[in-house]
Every structure is written in C-alpha cells, then in structure tokens.
C-alpha cells in the first residue's frame, strides 16, 4: 500500500505546496487506527488541528487565562488583546471592512439561528417569504422553519437539478415582492457544489433582498471575500477551518447588525442596566452576551493565521488537485456512482457503491484506518432529491494526498470482495 511515501507525495505536488511538511504540522496524522496509518477523509465534518492552534490554546490557558473586557489587571488585558487580535485576524481572512462586523458565536449553526431570530424576527410578517435551496444542511433549514412558523411566513425552496446545481431560472422566479431574505450555502456539504453565490447575491440585491451565506464548507476551501461577494451575512464554524470546536463567526454588514435587536441578554452586551431599561453595547458586543469561548476564539485566530501562512490559494489549488484525482479514480470504479456532479465542485465527493449501504462501507474502510462520513450528512432533503438513503462522503483538507485517495479506492475494492462483487 502506497501510503507513507512522503517523498513521492512531495514530488507529485507542484507549485511549491509541500504537503509532507504540512502533514508534519498536524500531530494526529501520526496516529494509527486498527494498526493502520490514519487516512482522515472526514474533513467536512471537522478538520484536524495544526500544532499552531493546539499550542496557542494551551498557551492561553497556561499563561494568559482570565476574563476579557472587564479586568484592569495584566492578564485580563493580555487576554482581551489576544481575543480582539483574533477578531482582526478573522476580519482579514474574510476581507470584511470592520472588526465590529465580526461576531463570535458557537458555530455556523448559532450564527444562522442568530440571523433567523434577530433579522427574521424583526423583518418577517405573515405571508412574507424566506428563500433557501434544496441542498441545505439542516442548519440552514430548521432555524428558518422555526421563525417562519412563528411569524406565519413561508419558506420557499430553490430546486436543484440532477447534477446538483441550483436551478437559476427557478431562483429568479422565487425572488418576489414578499421575499425578505435569501439563505444559501457557499459549498454544499452533501454534494460538493460550489454555488455561484456572487451572482445569486447580486440577483437578490436587485430585488432589494439581503442574503445570508452558510459558509461552513465554503470558508475552509473557497477563499472568502465578503466585500467582493457583497453578502449581507456570512456564517462559518472554526472547527471545520482547523480551529477549536465551539466557536464560529457571524459576519454581518454593520448597518444590518446595528438595526437588529440583540440575540441574548447578559453581560458584555450592555452599556448600562437599570430595572427600567437597558442600553445595549455597540457592535459586535451587542451580540456577544456572556463570557465567550475565549480560548476557542484565540485558537480560531491562530487557525486563520496558519491558513494564511500556507496561502489560501495554494491550499485550494492543492485540494483541487487531490479532489480531481479522487473524482477520476472513483468514477473509474464499476458500480460507483457519484451523487452530485456539479459544474463547480470543492473539497468533497459523495457517492454510492453498488447496493452496499454506506454504513457497511464506512465500517469496512475504518478497519483500514480510513475515516469517511456515511449517512445523510444532515441533509435529508438532498438524499430524498437524489433518491438515496445515504451516501459515503470523502472530504479533503490541506493535508490530504493522492496516495490517500488510492487507499480509499483499495478499501472500496475490499468492500466489493466482501459483498461478492457489488
């Protein structure tokens, strides 16, 4: 099995991206699973953490731990600076105009819930419409369903074609006088589709409608410039971007965030409190009630700086090479059918293999140390659309290699043998 030939990986890579060296930055990649080297292809679920992130979080706890935005003592000043430096790092990563447009939350899910609750809550009335697509993760469906139910608003869904692309004519038709917000995934977590979000945002804006982009899969792979996209909100999770779990980011245009009511009440989000009235704090603190995940935010700051150090474009080019090889290698296997063959793909392939259920495939691959995701990927409507109960998903990150794709293909050959030919 050609799995540990780092020198060969090295040679195979063009453009100076040294994947062998990148792999050395991720301690977990040295682990074995069932006695085999770990082949981690479940990055769309969560990415592994580079030493730079792990050590930054440890350093915070070992030398800086204290609460932020309140103490006048030295540690609190240090922690506050590190926390706000992370905000600035995220602002640079997204190319947002202002630090105050970066709100730290628990994850992409909470970011979307915040917008649904605060923007939707303030702007939706009975009969109004929210437009999403048929390829959403449940996180970009359920928060909108909740607020629509509460307000008597209607959820409208842009269909997806057989390849896994949104049907643009239907999208344009759905943008109507009652549309109050559009929420779309940058990259589909179940299909790998890269949506033409810039174009779709411009279309919505022509109709006077703001757009939220669910960037959970987009931020780690697509390279995000919120000003170029002109999106009104952008949500992503730290842990899929090599950062700690429990932290995410809501980017929002300052004007929209300012007009929205707070999400939660508590400390840090206020200027003055009396029993008669409370004056809310300025952005972004208005949306950051309570002591935040300080270590997580600082870790996220380290993650985006790590990624910037690698070069987001170099990473994307490397991932695209591995992905193209995976698509080529997998589609050459008899009985294997890709679910989603979109015009533009990023970071992942979803597939079914003969009539072997995804879970059985997942268990068999795991015996060879290969971690993939199996199931509905929290996107049950996508499974229904493509008439499959579940798929196997292999998703790639900066440290994955063509040799790991070979290992996946060899594992699938083993599945075929066990299940008597597929």
């Amino acid at each position, binding site marked *: 099995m050609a799995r540990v030939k780092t020198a060969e990986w090295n040679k195979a890579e063009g453009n100076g991206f040294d994947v062998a060296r990148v792999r050395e930055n991720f301690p977990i990649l040295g682990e074995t699973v*069932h006695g085999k080297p770990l082949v981690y292809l479940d990055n769309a679920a969560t990415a592994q953490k580079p030493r730079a992130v792990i050590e930054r979080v440890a350093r915070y706890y070992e030398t800086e731990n204290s609460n932020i935005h309140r103490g006048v003592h030295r540690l609190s000043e240090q922690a506050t600076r590190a926390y706000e430096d992370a905000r600035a790092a995220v602002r640079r990563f997204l190319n947002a105009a202002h630090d105050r447009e970066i709100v730290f939350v628990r994850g992409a899910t909470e970011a979307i819930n915040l917008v649904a609750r605060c923007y939707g809550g303030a702007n939706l009335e009975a009969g109004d419409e929210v437009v999403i697509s048929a390829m959403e993760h449940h996180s970009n469906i359920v928060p909108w369903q909740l607020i629509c139910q509460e307000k008597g608003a209607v959820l409208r869904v842009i269909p997806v074609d057989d390849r896994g692309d949104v049907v643009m004519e239907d999208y344009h038709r759905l943008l109507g006088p009652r549309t109050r917000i559009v929420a779309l995934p940058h990259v589909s977590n179940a299909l790998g589709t890269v949506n033409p979000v810039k174009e779709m945002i411009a279309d919505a804006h022509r109709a006077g409608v703001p757009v939220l982009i669910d960037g959970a899969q987009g931020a780690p792979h697509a390279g995000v410039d919120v000003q170029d996209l002109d999106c009104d909100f952008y949500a992503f999770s730290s842990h899929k971007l090599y950062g700690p779990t429990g932290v995410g980011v809501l980017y929002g245009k300052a004007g929209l965030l300012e007009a929205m009511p707070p999400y939660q009440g508590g400390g840090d989000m206020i200027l003055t409190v009396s029993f008669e009235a409370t004056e809310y704090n300025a952005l972004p603190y208005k949306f950051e009630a309570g002591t935040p995940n300080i270590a997580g935010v600082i870790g996220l700051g380290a993650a985006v700086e790590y990624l910037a150090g690698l070069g987001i474009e170099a990473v994307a080019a490397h991932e695209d090479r591995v992905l193209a090889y995976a698509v080529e290698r997998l589609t050459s296997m008899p009985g294997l059918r890709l679910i989603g063959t979109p015009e533009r793909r990023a970071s992942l392939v979803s597939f079914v293999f003969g009539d*072997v259920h995804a*879970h*059985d495939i997942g268990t068999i691959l795991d015996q060879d140390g290969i971690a993939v995701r199996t199931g509905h990927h929290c996107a049950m409507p996508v499974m229904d659309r493509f008439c499959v109960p579940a798929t196997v998903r292999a998703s790639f990150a900066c440290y994955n290699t063509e040799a790991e794709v070979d290992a996946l293909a060899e594992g699938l050959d083993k599945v075929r043998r066990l299940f008597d030919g597929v």
Partner: protein
Amino acid sequence: MSDLRDLYQELILDHNRRPRNFGPLAEANRSARGVNPLCGDKVAVHLHVEGDRVKKVSFEGTGCAISIASASVMTESLKEQSCDAARDLFERFHRMVAADDGQGADGDGMGKLAAFAGVRDYPARVKCATLAWHTLRAALDGEDKAVSTE
C-alpha cells in the same frame, strides 16, 4: 483488531441479499415504525397476533446490511412465539450485542441470532442491529408512534 468476517458473516450477507418476510402484511393487526435519525435507516415491523401468539410477521425498510439482516433473521425467529417469548428474545438479543457486563455475549442458545454477536465489537453499529428489535417491541406494545434509536 477483529476480523470483518466476524461482523459480516455469511448468514448476515445472505439475509441482506435476500431478506426473508420482507414486505407488507395484509393480516397485520399490530405495526410500528422505527428510525435511526443519525443514519436515516427506516424499518416497519408488522405483526399478526392471535391471542398471545405471533402468527405472522414481516418487515419493510431500508438500511445497511446489519440492520436489514437483523430484521430478517428476527422475523424468522418470531413466528409462532408467544408475545412474552418475543419480548424475552429482545432482551437476550440486546444483552448479546450491547450489555456492558458482557453477559450473554457469546450468543449461546440464540440460534441464528448468534451471528450478530460480532456486532458487540463495533459500538457504532449496535443501533443498526437493534433498530428492528426496538420496533418489534413497540409493535408488541401496540405503540402507534415511530420509535427512534436515539
């Protein structure tokens, strides 16, 4: 490392390929549906119960080899059993694949059901093997709601 063949025994592969008692049951007087929300596996178990005896049983659904085979072998083991015996079999099957104390883990006296003893070594798959059984219990109890492995 446990051998994959301990999990995917020939009996399991066979019942997955050709599930027995698969389909609706016209005479059914008790039915229940089960879902595993984590993976989307779905199963319906139909029983024709006369007095205290399971006269006929069938199942329908989609799922992995473990869950389909488990449902299929389950239907074979239930016919002409009393409802109490069926409940007892549920308990013994559950102990075999999941009990912390390892009691009954060898599947002694379980007949064909012992083929599922290997599931114990794959904790993530225990729910696959037990979904049909949970659904059976709901059908026996006459619960008209979907059961969930969660």
